[in-house]
């Protein structure tokens, strides 16, 4: 099976998740990677192991343009795939309908050439499906796959297709920060609404900084304005699978747990010993976050972490 994979870009730069979905796609066959963005991103994409060829196209970010671009290339491929990111979610169902294909999305495990596992009901059930269609349109959750190695030097082919879109891009409102990317981070510190204010959330961020961690938040914390929307973890936010997740003042609603099921270890800090998060945490410290966080951060600063 030949695979066409849409590279995941962030503000024109190749995202860390591209190497992860490339590893997933490579399980299905030789992968051609489409980079619709700056040449530098295509150059970087060519280093990902397992990529047969990079196809470099003009920058495209809007769903209708990207779907048309992919549809134009689709004939030569059996599988057309992308990350289950907001871009992949925007584009791939549109592409699938154009091609009259039922897509399989948010894949977390590949059990064979046509057999995939995807979570449903906020991850409270896993559905195993066989896709016997002639063409497959798929999205993979980056957090569920280990990144492909680098060191490749795949050829780069320029594609001279004009990308037309009925939609018009007006502005990006990005959350600029130097903290690690949430969806691929090894350590994540998450804060809930109980931090009480944006100021309170700084305690969570300080612990994160000490650990070199990404910062997550519950929907309640985002809605309250304590954290930006792209920090939201859960059914409708980001799906994460860090080695360590530290949940601070988070109750553990099932929609939040949907985002952290892949975490290897969960540590909970909560005043309530009966909170759902405490029931599933590997380690829990029952107490007041305002008391605990400053001390914990100071203690870890002192211990000289190897990061």
């Amino acid at each position: 099976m030949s695979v066409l994979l849409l590279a995941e870009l962030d503000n024109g730069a190749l995202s860390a998740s591209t190497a992860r979905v490339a590893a997933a796609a490579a399980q299905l066959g030789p992968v051609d990677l489409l980079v619709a963005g700056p040449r530098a991103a295509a150059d970087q994409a060519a280093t990902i192991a397992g990529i047969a060829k990079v196809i470099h196209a003009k920058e495209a970010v809007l769903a209708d343009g990207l779907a048309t671009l992919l549809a134009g290339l689709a004939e030569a491929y059996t599988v057309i795939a992308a990350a289950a990111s907001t871009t992949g979610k925007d584009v791939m169902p549109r592409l699938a309908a154009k091609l009259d294909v039922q897509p399989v999305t948010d894949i977390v495990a590949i059990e064979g050439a046509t057999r995939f596992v995807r979570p449903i009901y906020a991850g409270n059930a896993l559905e195993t499906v066989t896709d016997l269609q002639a063409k497959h349109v798929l999205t993979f959750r980056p957090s569920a796959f280990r990144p492909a190695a680098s060191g490749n030097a795949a050829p780069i082919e320029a594609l001279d297709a004009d990308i037309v879109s009925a939609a018009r891009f007006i502005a990006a409102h990005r959350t600029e920060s130097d903290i690690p990317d949430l969806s691929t981070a090894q350590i994540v510190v998450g804060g809930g609404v109980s931090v009480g204010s944006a100021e309170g959330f700084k305690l969570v961020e300080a612990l994160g900084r000490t650990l070199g961690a990404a910062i997550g938040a519950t929907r309640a914390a985002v809605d309250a304005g304590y954290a930006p929307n792209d920090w939201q973890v859960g059914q409708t936010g980001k799906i994460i699978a860090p080695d360590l997740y530290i949940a601070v003042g988070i109750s553990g609603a099932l929609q939040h747990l949907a985002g952290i099921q892949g975490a290897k270890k969960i540590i909970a800090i909560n005043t309530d010993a009966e909170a759902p998060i405490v029931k599933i945490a590997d380690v829990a410290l029952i107490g007041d976050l305002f008391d605990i966080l400053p001390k914990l951060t100071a203690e870890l600063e002192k211990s000289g972490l190897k990061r």
Partner: protein
Amino acid sequence: MKILVAVKRVVDHNVRIRVRPDGTGVETTGVRMSMNPFCKHAVEAAVQMAEAGHTEEVVIVSIGPKPANDVILTALAMGAHRGVLIETDQALETLAIAKLLAKVVDEEKPDLVLLGKQAVDDDSNHVGQMLAALTDRPQATFASAIKLAGDELEVTREVDSGRETIAIPLPAIVTADLRLNTPRNAALPMVMKARAKPLAIRPASELGVDLAPRLKVEKVSPPAERSAGRAVNSVAELAAIIADDVNAMEAI
């Protein structure tokens, strides 16, 4: 302008679901059902546009078994004008749903179709985008703000890097995220009034769409269970555990 809103009846989002022991699916009998939360935000957006005088008619469509009438009534009680139930007892894939909705769009010719961004049962996040492809309309998914500007919509979208604003010409498809608005709870008189509003019921088979599934569901299984580990009693103890973990992590 005319708005069509697609709403789905799903297992209520507060219900802790149970996977059937035989692996055939999720237990839905005797379980509380309600309107998919994202669809509520879509209905609210449409009703607000009507209240602002931008919209003459808000039509609600749902595809599902007879009891899906209930979620249409909920939307009518929120202020929508008219409902259509495309009745089927079959569980449909998202492509089939989108094709049925495309038929309805063909008949109703709405300027704007609003949908939820995802249904909390299948968590697909497909139908709006598919409908946009099938009707060859522009799309703005994951909307957290919608502004009408002439014959264009300015939509703010929730994306992985934050938010972004795009403009799309009408007719168009928009899918709603949860921060778009705060859905109203219909007061009792509105619920009573909703029953008097027109609600057409049409068998799905009448629309001439191939509803056969493309995928074979092999099994549905519960996720690995997590259980409580240990409680620690001091910050020092917790710091030691975290430091050990962090120092043992292999770099990726």
